[in-house]
Each structure stands twice: as C-alpha cells, then as structure tokens.
C-alpha cells in the first residue's frame, strides 16, 4: 500500500460513487414514474447494471478483490430477472 493506492481509493469513494448516485436517481425516477409495466422492468434491469458499477467501485475503494465475484453474481441474477419478467409480460393476458 502506498500513496497511489490511497489516492485511487479516495477517488473512488469521493468522486465515482456520488456520480453513480446521479445515474441511480435518474433510473429510480423512471422506475417510479414509468407509465407501463415493461418500463419499470427496463429500469430495474438498468438498476442492477449500475449496481455492478457500484460494487466494483467499492471493490477498488475498500481494496477487496473478492467483491468482483459479487459483481459477477449480480450480472447473472439480473439476466435471470430480465428473462423471467419477459416470460411474465408475454404470457399475461
């Protein structure tokens, strides 16, 4: 651990995470407002993709390489959620 590590970690915590929060808020606006149900599903899908970015920023900011695994799992779960909602939207009459 040296100054470079510390600088990048502080950059992740104090610059990247607030910027990612802007994207989360924009997506939440669509999730709440969305006129149709598939709009909300798309917003939920994008929310989980931003969650991958947040987890990776935390992995760098807290210096934990294990968190990359969690990002991978979240990616898989978001795909499963999207496919499940797709079936649900189409079959519902």
């Amino acid at each position, binding site marked *: 651990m040296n100054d*470079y590590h510390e600088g*990048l970690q502080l950059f992740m915590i104090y610059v990247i995470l607030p*910027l990612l929060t802007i994207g989360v808020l924009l997506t939440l606006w669509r999730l709440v407002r969305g006129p149709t149900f598939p709009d909300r599903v798309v917003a939920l899908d994008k929310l989980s993709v931003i969650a991958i*970015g947040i987890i990776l920023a935390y992995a760098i900011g807290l210096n934990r390489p294990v968190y990359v*695994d969690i990002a*991978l799992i979240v990616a898989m779960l978001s795909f499963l959620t999207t496919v499940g909602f797709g079936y649900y939207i*189409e*079959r519902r009459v």
Partner: protein
Amino acid sequence: MELLLFGLSALLMLISTFFFIVSGIGLVRMPDLYMRMSATSKAATLGAACAFLAGALYFYDNLSVALRVFAGILFIFATAPIGAHMIGRASYARGVAVWEGAVIDEMEGCYDRSTHSFHSSPQHNQTTATTPDETGTAPQAPAATSQQAAP
C-alpha cells in the same frame, strides 16, 4: 508503472460513470419504451464493461481477478442483447404503444395472439386467423416458420 495503471483505472471508471449517467438521461428523456430500451441496453452495458476493466487494472497483481473480469465482460456482452430483445418482444406482443411521432411500424399486425408468435407478413396472419388448421400458402410457409420464435 503503477501510476500509469491506476490512472488508466480511474479514467475507465470515469468513462463508465459517464455512460451510466448518459443512459440514465436517455431513460428519463426518451419518449418511448423501445427507445428507452436502446438507451439502457447499449450505454449501460458499455459502462459495466468499463467498470470491470477498471477493476482488472487496479488488481493487476492478482491474475484470478483478471480472469473473472474477462468472464464478466463476456457474460454481460452476451446476455444484455438477449434480455433487451426479450423484453421488447414481450412488450410489443402485449401491445405497448410505439411513439406517436414514429413514421412506420413494420411489425403491425404480424403478431398471432393465439400461438404467441410473429409472422413475416400481415397477410399470412390473416389466413391463419381465418383458417387456423392450415399453415398458410406454400411460398409463405418457410419464411413464417423461420421467423417463428421459440415459445
């Protein structure tokens, strides 16, 4: 060397947040479900890939992290178009309206509600609607079956 890697990592993370914010703005401002889906499925995927690459550059001395990052990028690039296509197809079949300023809707009347499948032309759909036992005329039948998606 380390300064270069970490600078690249910070730059990639900034690019990824830029793409996330751009896709959020697209999600809010676009007038139509299908345009919103194009904003999320393209920009957000690229943002996630940039974030993964930033993680790989930060943990450069840990090779297993690089392998996981490679798998993650491959997985996201493979599954994001599939999910977006699935949501778009299902919502069109359910009847979500396209934007009123849209010039053309080429899929209009091509969805068969009884079989949950899309046909290549509206005429073929009308023949199946009147006579459900027959699968259309001979020249149109192979195109229709190739367009048919798995239920």
